[in-house]
């Protein structure tokens, strides 16, 4: 068995036993359960959970990943004093952190939602997409957290940057987009708007959920680019690929930095 897999196994064991992970599972579970109790049908509960997922999942992914990486710095040195390559250590660390966190997302949101969907099969497709998006978004935000923690040595600065990334991606970015879209002439904005959306992982995740819950509104838009994008499977495929790129690219960059830096 590969060294990275061995590292991932012990790392994930450590992470899974952490108190915060339990808190996170309970939080997600509570939110999902509350909305399911408040809303008449599962689909509406899901729609209500969209904001929660788009806010909470990236925030937790970013903070948890960054904190963990800073906390593990000394032990990582110790591991690297063993016959372990940096690439292997990095891969193992990512899997060891991201997978338990993704598992927590599935457990916290998935358990109540799947149970609800079994009673209301019309919501099954929505639940499946919802969970897939939540998981991919978790992985992407852990990727970004790894990038943050290897790029910035100082722990306090790193945490600050992680929060700033979250704030930018979840709020500021969209604010700028709205202002830009409403001030620029609307004619040629369609493609840029779509591209800008895909350049933000949280927006990409949001668009994936929009396609599930606001199809009627999206199809009401006049432009051909949107209609082609949102009309068929193209949009979903492109958005999922983009979100996957948001996992892979920051991670590769982070690993490159990690392999070259002094520890």
């Amino acid at each position: 068995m590969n060294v990275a897999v061995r590292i991932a196994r012990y790392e994930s064991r450590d992470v899974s036993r952490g108190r915060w992970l339990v808190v996170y599972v309970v939080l997600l579970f509570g939110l999902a359960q509350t909305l399911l109790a408040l809303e008449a049908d599962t689909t509406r509960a899901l729609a209500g959970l969209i904001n929660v997922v788009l806010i909470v999942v990236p925030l937790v992914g970013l903070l948890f990943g960054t904190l963990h990486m800073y906390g593990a710095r000394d032990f990582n040195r110790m591991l690297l004093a063993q016959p372990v390559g940096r690439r292997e250590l990095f891969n193992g660390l990512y899997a060891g952190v991201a997978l338990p966190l993704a598992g927590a997302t599935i457990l916290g949101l998935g358990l109540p939602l799947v149970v609800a969907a079994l009673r209301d099969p019309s919501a099954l497709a929505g639940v499946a997409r919802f969970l897939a998006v939540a998981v991919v978004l978790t992985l992407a935000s852990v990727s970004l957290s790894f990038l943050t923690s290897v790029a910035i040595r100082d722990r306090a600065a790193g945490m600050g940057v992680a929060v700033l990334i979250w704030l930018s991606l979840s709020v500021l970015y969209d604010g700028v987009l709205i202002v830009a879209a409403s001030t620029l002439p609307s004619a040629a904005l369609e493609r840029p708007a779509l591209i800008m959306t895909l350049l933000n992982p949280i927006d990409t995740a949001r668009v994936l959920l929009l396609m599930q819950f606001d199809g009627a509104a999206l199809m009401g838009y006049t432009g051909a680019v949107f209609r082609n994008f949102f009309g068929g499977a193209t949009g979903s495929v492109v958005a999922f690929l983009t979100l996957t790129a948001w996992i892979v690219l920051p991670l590769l960059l982070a690993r490159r930095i990690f392999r070259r830096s002094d520890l």
Partner: protein
Amino acid sequence: MHGVLARRLASGTVAAIGVLVASCGTGAPSAFETADQAAHAEHAPMEHATTDLEQRPAPDDRPGIPDSESLETEPTAARTVLIVDPAGPLSSIGEAVRAAAPGSRILVKPGVYTEPTIVVDRPVTIEGEGYPTIDGEGERQLFEVTSDDVRITGLALRNVGVSYVQDRAAIRVERAARCEIDHNRIHGGFFAIYLAGATDCRVTDNHIVGTGAAETDSGNGIHAWNSSHIVIESNQIRGHRDGIYFEFVKDSRVSRNVAEDNIRYGLHFMFSDRCRYRSNSFRRNGAGVAVMYTSDIEMVGNRFESNQGSAAFGVLLKDIRDSRIADNEFRENSVGLYAEGFDRTVVEGNDFVRNGRAIRLLSNSAETQFVGNNFEGNTFDVTTNSRRVRSSFEGNHWDGYGGYDLDGDGVGDVPHRPVRLFALIAERSPVTTVLLRSFFVTLLDWTERVVPSLTPDNLVDERPAMRPLDRSAT
């Protein structure tokens, strides 16, 4: 025609009894038959007929020939039955019609008939046995009805063929009264059934499938022009340009039809006053349903579903006045109800579910009331194009209502403003639609809700219902 007169009187009496029965709660949904026979038999005043049809329990579902007709025509026993069979001796329907005495019945045996357009110029019943096929070979109209009291039933009609110069139809009725077109299967009619100047006609239980791919090479499923007292009921229409098309049609009734996957509109009418639309379903039509320039219509209990696209509407209402739109369901349309010049109309008890925009109300509408509707899971509940609206909203249930009900009377204590700020932004800059459900947008909407500054001042529901309004109670 003494029988007819007697029948009319009797029908009035039965109607009165029917009212009593219905009020006792035994009203059956298919309550139209007998009243119709009355209208069919004689020009009963439409007012009368409508009260009738709303209240009246049906004797039974009609199998083949309605009993009224047999009752009515029995005394004129002179009528004959002609049998058309591909094996002869009589193998042409047209020939049979020409040979028939008025009031005859022409029974068409199974087979495929290709013959010149059949002109029905005398009151006869043409009845198919086992759906004999009449094929237009892509180049002609199949039936042209020019006489009153014609019935065409049980036929399979196909291949009318596209024409760019003539409104060709599988069955065309020209200036005739009391025709009855029922239980036919029409496939590839350019127009399927075309009524021009028809009165008191019934088009029921037909199964109509068009084969057109574009608006230009496709006609309408059921097309009525300059007609009155028409009943269109329980037909299924798909693949045509418009499923049902009315222009200058008065006092007519469209019920329990299903129009889906038509190229343009499921239902399209204009200048057609005093018509009633009940319990129809309009699904996945290119542009939904459009009704224009008409007063006094009633649309009750219809379903408008999955009409999606930049110009697709559950219902588009333009210059509609003094009407009633009630108990309908608008589901997953890009725009549920689009209203322009929509005056003095009541919109009540409808369900708006998961539409892009449930209601788009333009400011040139006045005195329309939206009462007791349910809004659930719509992206936008109400959008408009002005800061002042001249219509009112009251007692609706809004799933986005954030207020409370301290006195527990089921009515929210805080008024609800259904127009979101983001709806205005998306209005002005449609490309921002892609930012739907963004946290930033949520913050914007929330701010606007706390300090309204851009959304319409008087578009407020002062008495929002805390719970979805129960439909079974109405």
